[in-house]
């Protein structure tokens, strides 16, 4: 982070103190991005930008106020400090509000491998070439691939600076890039679309655009001729992407914010068996190169490894310092700081530990059931765990992927679903901050015709 921004943040923190804040925290972000899309071989769009923004949180004792802006000129910043203090005066005193203790703050040791300058130096011409190659590879796979929502490439770099009045100064830089393809297939007057992508912190770690395009093509083609199956209660095999979406819902449920609000089905269940003993769920923000890695969290607390569920038992919630105080626990370094508002809770790298069974064996064990490859909609209730989502996938008959299905829903309850995990695949491939292998879950209701 540029030294003048560090100086600005420190000046803000001390100026807030001079104007009456008992504590102050300042976050500055800057970044630049390039994204391109290519459709049917022609460049469709190129977007480039640079930006920076500032967030200030002040405390007057136990009252907090926050402001944010993209205007980093000093007179505007002074006005932000004043309005943050004015807002804090209107807030209620909250005995649990406040920055983490100085002893809790710090950064995890070592280089986390998050920043690669070359990744952010990609030119628009190179980006267009990546996107075009991915789309071309997809469309070349089969004559039924007649249209496209395009090939895409994006890359960027960013920096985040966090400074507070209890002595914390932390800065982190990161880079990322991704290539994607969204081909469209048509057969008998019906169209289907699917996608694939590869993302990495370093351009050299991306899958080749040809490989991404071919996978996107295969995923699209296998949806052609989809049927609507009859309503039934059957076992469901979740592919790694749909399995990861389940972890996303569990992340909501283990978040300290949901727990202290008693808005989670896991409230009060610490130490209890909440899932199949085959299931272990770990959050780790310190993995080198991880999409969810960072040396410190949104409050300046070092990130760490936390076993959330160990062999089916709920071992820990994920906490920021506020949720921790509300629950009489210690922060787990999972504070998420957006520019606006108080910190929330998020994961580092949340991963479900791989099992020993191959996905082929798992599918082979199902006589009649669903292999689900995509979900739609928002039918998940984190308070009760009730689950009902639109889906598509492939029907399994006698252990074989038989035919594609669509216009169905998959319904159950997240608590029962985690208890009813009958197999965990050995195919954990990390593609984002939340990763899971193939899962087999029994006793779900498929609504169809």
């Amino acid at each position, binding site marked *: 982070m540029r030294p003048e921004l560090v100086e600005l943040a420190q000046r803000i923190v001390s100026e807030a103190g001079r104007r009456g804040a008992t504590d102050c925290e300042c976050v500055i972000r800057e970044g630049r991005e390039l994204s391109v899309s290519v459709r049917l071989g022609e*460049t*469709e*769009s*190129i*977007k*480039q*930008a640079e*930006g*920076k*923004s500032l967030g200030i949180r002040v405390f007057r004792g136990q009252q*907090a*106020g926050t*402001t*944010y*802006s*993209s*205007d980093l000129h000093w007179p505007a910043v002074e006005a932000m400090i004043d309005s*943050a203090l004015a*807002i*804090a005066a*209107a*807030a*209620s*005193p909250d005995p649990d509000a406040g920055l983490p203790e100085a002893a809790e703050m710090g950064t995890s040791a070592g280089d986390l491998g998050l920043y690669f300058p070359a990744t952010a130096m990609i030119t628009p011409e190179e980006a267009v070439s990546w996107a075009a190659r991915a789309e071309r590879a997809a469309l070349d796979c089969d004559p039924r691939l007649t*249209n496209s*929502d395009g090939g895409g490439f994006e890359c960027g770099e960013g920096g985040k600076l966090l400074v507070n009045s209890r002595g914390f100064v932390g800065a982190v830089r990161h880079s990322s890039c991704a290539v994607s393809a969204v081909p*469209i297939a048509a057969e008998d007057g*019906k*169209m*289907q*679309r699917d996608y694939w992508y590869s993302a990495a912190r370093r351009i050299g770690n991306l899958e080749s655009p040809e490989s991404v395009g071919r996978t996107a093509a295969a995923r699209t083609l296998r*949806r052609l001729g989809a049927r609507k199956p009859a309503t039934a209660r059957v076992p469901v095999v979740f592919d790694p992407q749909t399995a990861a979406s389940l972890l996303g819902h569990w992340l909501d449920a283990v978040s300290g914010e949901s727990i202290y*609000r*008693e*808005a989670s089905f896991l409230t009060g269940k610490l130490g209890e068996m909440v899932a199949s003993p085959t299931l272990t769920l770990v959050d780790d923000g310190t993995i080198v190169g991880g999409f969810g890695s960072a040396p410190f969290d949104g409050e300046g607390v070092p990130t760490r490894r936390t076993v959330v569920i160990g062999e089916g038992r709920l071992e820990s919630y994920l906490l920021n310092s506020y949720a921790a105080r509300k629950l009489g626990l210690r922060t787990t370094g999972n504070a998420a700081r957006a*520019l*606006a*508002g*108080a910190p929330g809770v998020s994961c580092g790298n949340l991963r479900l530990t791989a099992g020993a069974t191959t996905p082929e064996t798992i599918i082979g064990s199902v006589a009649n059931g669903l292999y689900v490859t995509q979900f*739609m*909609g*928002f*039918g998940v*209730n984190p*308070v*009760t765990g*009730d689950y*009902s*989502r*639109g889906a*598509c996938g492939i029907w399994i008959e006698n252990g074989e992927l038989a035919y594609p299905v*669509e*216009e169905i*829903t998959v*319904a*159950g*309850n997240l608590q029962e679903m985690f208890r009813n995990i009958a197999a965990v695949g050995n195919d954990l491939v990390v593609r984002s901050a939340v990763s899971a292998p193939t899962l087999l879950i029994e006793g779900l*209701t498929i*609504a*169809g015709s």
Partner: protein
Amino acid sequence: MANFFAERYGVQAAELETYLAAALSRGGEYADLYFEYQASSSLTLEEGLIKSATQGISLGVGIRVLSGERTGYAYTDDLNPAKILRAAEVAAHIASGPAQQRIAGLNASDLGQRPTASLYPVTQAATDAAMAMKLALVRRADRAARAYDPRVVQVRAGYADELRHILIVRSDGRCQSDSQPMARLSVFCLAREGAQTERGNAGGGGRVELEFFDQEITPEKLGEQAAREAVQQLSAVPCPAGEMEVVLGPGWPGILLHEAIGHGLEADFNRKKTSAFAGLLGQRVAGDQCTVVDNGTLPGRRGSVNMDDEGTPTQCTTLIENGILKGYLQDHLSSHLTRAQATGNGRRESYAHMPMPRMTNTYMLAGQHEPEDIIRSVKRGLYAVNFGGGQVDITNGKFVFSASESYLIEDGRITAPVKGATLIGNGPDVLTRVSMVGHDLRLDQGIGSCGKDGQTVPVGVGIPTLKVDRLTVGGTGA
């Protein structure tokens, strides 16, 4: 009228011409500048405490250059002329060649041009009195929810508003500004009985001033709505699974139209023939009782704007008339490429985003039937009155939307409340199964947000009570 950006940031007509010239310096055919200043504030009451209060400012300029079907886009959050000029030069690179277009001349008076429509008040900067009123709103909502039933154990009430000033300057000489307010009050509740906990949500608002919340949509009404939904869910039975008759109540269930047909009728998808509706213009896509419009001109509504984010006035566009597909939702790019009329649907989340065709307020006109007769006509089905979000795959037409409050209909009577369930269907044919349309058209209370390509914009929806003869309901029950 003076322009906000001229007054506060000294933006002048001559420099705008320079930016446009730089944007078109490599042969682009069209360029526009989008200046935006957005002031936001929000506060949240939880556990009886004002826990979070925030104010923020977002400021920047987006510069777009069109060359055939290509778009170049760059933005900066710094209004320093050198930064804007550089962004214009970056966006210009989408084209390659000598400059072709002349820039229409701008005068200082052009900066003051506003659309002829005036659908919402021009709100003033927030005052201390306003802050006290906002605090009172969330406290009143909290009180009403808790008073509704002793089983209500948690209440979170939030108030958020924003005022967005925009200035659009186009290379064809059009120059327009607008000031767009927005306010929203929302309530989330938990109700508990024994070991069971259930949630309820309600919200309302629009492009309105604070006084709006003392009229029809009061904090008391929203508090009670959220509490009622949570308490009612305590006795809910599992939702049935499978195809059945579904009656949608009036208002917010109009999200059906938004997902099932609205997105599929956005012109970009039809120009590219990636929508399941591509090529269906003039054909039957709904029952003959169904007439659906997208109307950006309703005063004070959340989805309304005096002009879209490309400076085109909004209008009421008929999408489906008596069951026949009549039109698409157009932005500048798609209407230009397909030689269609722009419909005022070119919208964007902010200066950091490219405009694209988006809905405003999408609703079905009232029909003839008594709502009671519609329910009475159902032997066994679902009556859904409140919903969470929805989603659509515009290519195969499949859409979902999730009910948060619904009831069984047995032998023409509304019986037990059921747990939340997702409804799934196929956009191009779901409306052909609409067999009864009520006379009770209602619009939603002003809470809708629509996501597309990572951009969120405020929208409205509405329907009268209507019956779909066959829709798949995704419950767990028999």
